[in-house]
């Protein structure tokens, strides 16, 4: 569960960062459960045949469904998504962690990659 700690021990205050804690894990269970199922190729194909029905089968709420429909990673995180499971969703569409990094930071993929390179300089 989220602990309302103060000071340097609280990662909830780190800008642009949501700690995947108990609150998020409960909120995002259905979304993450669905994404976990994408480990199996047959499930990925089932999803692609009828995304809405697949989301409903896993009990996603409307915010989670809308985030999936629009492939909006920040909205998925807000709805309780965990990046490791969301990566399996991204994989269906061939999106790399640079692609989703660019989407989340509002940069082009080339700009995002250039920022990674710059971190080494």
């Amino acid at each position, binding site marked *: 569960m989220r602990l309302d700690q103060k000071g*340097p*021990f*609280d*990662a909830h205050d*780190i*800008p*642009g*960062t*949501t*700690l*995947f*804690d*108990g609150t998020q*894990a409960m909120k995002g*269970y259905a979304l*993450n*459960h669905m*994404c*976990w199922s*994408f*480990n*199996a*190729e047959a499930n*990925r194909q089932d999803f692609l045949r009828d995304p809405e029905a697949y989301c409903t089968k896993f009990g996603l709420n409307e915010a989670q469904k809308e985030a999936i429909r629009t492939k909006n*990673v*920040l909205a998925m*995180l807000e709805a309780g998504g*965990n*990046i*490791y*499971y*969301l*990566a*399996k969703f*991204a*994989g*269906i569409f*061939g999106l*790399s*962690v*640079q692609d*989703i*990094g660019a989407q*989340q*930071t509002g940069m082009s993929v080339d700009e*995002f*990659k250039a*920022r*990674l*390179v710059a*971190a*080494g300089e």
Partner: protein
Amino acid sequence: MARIVGGISTSHIPAIGNAIAKGLQQEPYWKPFFDGYPPVYEWLDRVKPDVAVIVYNDHGLNFFLNSMPTFAIGAAAEYRNEDEGWGLRPLPPFPGDPKFSWHVIESLVADEFDITICQDLKVDHGFAVPMSLLFGGKGKWPVRTIPLEVNTVQHPLPTPARCYKLGQALGRAIESYSQDLKVVVVGTGGMSHQLEGKRAGFINKEFDLYCMQKIVTDPKALTKYTIPELVELAGSQGPELIMWLIMRGALRGRVTKLHSNYHIPISNTGAGLLLLENAA
């Protein structure tokens, strides 16, 4: 008696597995990373460890949020790598050493580390990529393995101090095994990176280099951090440092750094490599 000959820390990024599968090691993007490894290969060829204990985190292949152990260990004759959903080609199964695993389990639990015991464990890229990096390309795996898995998915994660102590208990467990085996302990993951949120792409070179130095000479300095502090300093996946601390804790002899390499970026991360010798 079993003897810990050394420790290795290495990145486990999936893209490395793809680069190996496609033979991209000498491409300009990959060369500064892969060129760090030959001194490790020479050491492994010379020392010829019998068993590798791989400390890694599962990213949603074997474990899900329905039941998430903080620490888990394999006790199987074989560990399978499988499809993780985004295209990394699964590798052939990895041989285990169940008798040795059960000895380690009994010793850890007697030492008050009540670890989850897995007779059936699928190992994901956190385990498979380091195995491929360190021991691949030889036709068959030249070592038996013991996977030691750590929760870095769902907070609260185990503290750095706890992980260092687990490493010390792991060292005692290995070295109390009656068989005459050479063991290498591999801490995987890291270094600074953040995959999610508006801070995605965060890398902290200065902190990574500090950690690479301290983990050799003064690992206890790193055990003073809390997990949230590591998130702040090294990004949301930066706490993977705890797996390096387990490796380091297991080396209880005279530790000498034989080799290191650090390169930014590999995928979204700072990629660090350390080869540590553990002399009696």
